[in-house]
């Protein structure tokens, strides 16, 4: 069979150089793949592949270095921002980011998260919030919603017993060391575009040495939530966004916006 040759066509979309050819190990419909891609697209477009070092700690994204074609470190659970601090302090001219899940950043690594931002480390922290522990099989996360059924909250998260969902992004936005704090999502093309713009700003801000940029990505976990990918996107909109509303939380040059009080 003769293969038709397409000529004079313009390439409008391709895999960024900063992604390897390794197929993602993530479950079908998981937001990690999109988040990885957008992050790498930004690094590609800014032309900073040679100057960027990433840190991915324990969690589903611990293998991020399989996919991100940049120098990377795998960190201990909760310690990504400490490792990133170490890298940035000895390589202050480089771009450094951490890519952490909710259990990592908001439970076991809470001290490191707060103090990294409080020192105003000039790094980008990407925070994937899918309200569950994906890698270990669907246990409760600090960001799990009230009533959310997980393998360790089989009767639903009871705030009287285990506390309320931790809105750590609003919390760290209070710190003077935080320069740019925003919450985005990857559930629609429009949301992805907004996320990409924020990531781009965060990398550009890093050169200013003004403090930590922190971007939460509200994501999904179809396997952990026991939902189909499509159902999980709907679940995000109906359940996650009321608790974790999207948008800028702290923007350079503006006074801190009041953290959302919706559904608290």
């Amino acid at each position: 069979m003769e293969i038709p040759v397409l000529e004079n066509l313009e390439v409008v979309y391709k895999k960024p150089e900063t992604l390897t050819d390794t197929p993602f190990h993530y479950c079908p419909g998981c937001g990690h793949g999109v988040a990885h891609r957008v992050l790498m697209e930004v690094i590609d477009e800014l032309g900073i592949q040679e100057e960027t070092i990433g840190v991915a700690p324990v969690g589903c994204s611990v293998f991020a270095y399989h996919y991100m074609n940049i120098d990377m470190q795998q960190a201990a659970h909760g310690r990504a921002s400490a490792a990133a601090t170490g890298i940035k302090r000895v390589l202050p001219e480089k771009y450094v980011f951490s890519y952490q899940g909710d259990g990592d950043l908001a439970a076991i690594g809470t001290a490191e998260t707060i103090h990294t931002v409080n020192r105003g480390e000039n790094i980008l922290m990407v925070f994937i919030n899918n309200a569950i522990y994906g890698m270990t099989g669907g246990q409760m996360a600090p960001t799990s919603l009230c009533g959310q059924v997980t393998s360790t909250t089989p009767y639903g998260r009871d705030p009287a017993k285990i506390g309320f969902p931790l809105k750590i992004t609003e919390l760290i936005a209070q710190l003077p060391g935080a320069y740019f704090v925003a919450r985005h999502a990857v559930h629609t093309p429009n949301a992805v575009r907004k996320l990409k713009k924020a990531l781009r700003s965060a990398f550009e801000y890093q050169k200013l040495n003004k403090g930590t940029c922190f971007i939460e990505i509200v994501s999904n976990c179809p396997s952990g939530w026991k939902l189909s990918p499509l159902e999980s996107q709907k679940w995000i909109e109906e359940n996650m966004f009321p608790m974790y509303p999207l948008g800028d939380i702290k923007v350079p040059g503006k006074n801190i916006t009041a953290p959302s009080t919706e559904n608290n």
Partner: protein
Amino acid sequence: MENTNKKEVRLMKGNEALAEAAIRAGLHAYFGYPITPQSEILEYFEEQAPKRGFTVLQAESEVASINMIYGAAGAGARVMTSSSSPGVSLMQEGISYIATAELPCLIVNITRGGPGLGTIQPSQGDYFQSVKGGGHGDYKLFVLAPSSVQEMADFVFDAFRVSEKYRIPALILADGALGQMMEKLTLPEEGSLPHVTPEWGTTGKTKDRERNIITSLHIQPEKMEAINHHLQAKYKAIEEAEVRYEEYFMEDAEIVFVAFGLSARICQKAVDIVREKGIKAGLIRPITLFPFPKQIISETANRAVGFMVVEMNAGQMVEDVQLAVNGKCPVYFKGRMGGMIPTPEEIAVALEEKFIHHEEKV
């Protein structure tokens, strides 16, 4: 501080001598957290850093500082941290990661009496933690035990050299007395330990190489076993090439003290005391605790009447001495615990009780 390039004799605290030596060894960054009896190390670095161009950061915890070490060492820098016993316990997970990712760095433990929060007085109770792994999994550190302020400074250079040569974390195991006491020392020369940024470091992926990855995760057991074999081969090479020990009156010794660090210094005096009574005692002082000088102990056991191991703990290194002696002659133990330091006299008495009066009693 006029001219730091020439050798100079100074009177310094052990902690400060160690910190000054690290600066002279070309330290790029220090990350640490205060804890008695080693806080002078962090304080010294904080005071010197702006004048001498290196990075120092007081972390929010020992957990954070050891992971900052992981990041900075992974980025190819010459880095160190220090703490004391409870703080070093907190670091163990990170040390296991660092050992597995094969990152060179220096960790200093100015040991205090335990267990628990214990006391701030000197101890050697962290021997097991230092040489048997400490954290999870099969790994080793290159462990040096100084016994003077001079060695607190000198061993920093040796620690960095071996650490970078073999890509193994180095540990200086001293105690609170060595950290706090002041002695005369000749400071090591600045600039005598060149540093080359390693090609494996995460310094930014240039076009001429593949990306560098620092990790301790190898999920396939076949791969993880291969990593373990690689680590074990490295530890064997270190055992063959980097053993250090010191002998004192060993030419004709029949009864042999084995002690490290401060205990070894006290045992020297105990040797002098019993020698005056005509007892042919000597001392083997392990300087490297890993690799342990088992060969000299094993050889000595062929001709010795017996050994007495002296430690400021409940008996830890004595197990390694017993393994090296392998039943060829008796091995006795004399220890003090909880921050207590034995006197030369009580050690001499203990030796006489075991080896001299013992026979009379029987």
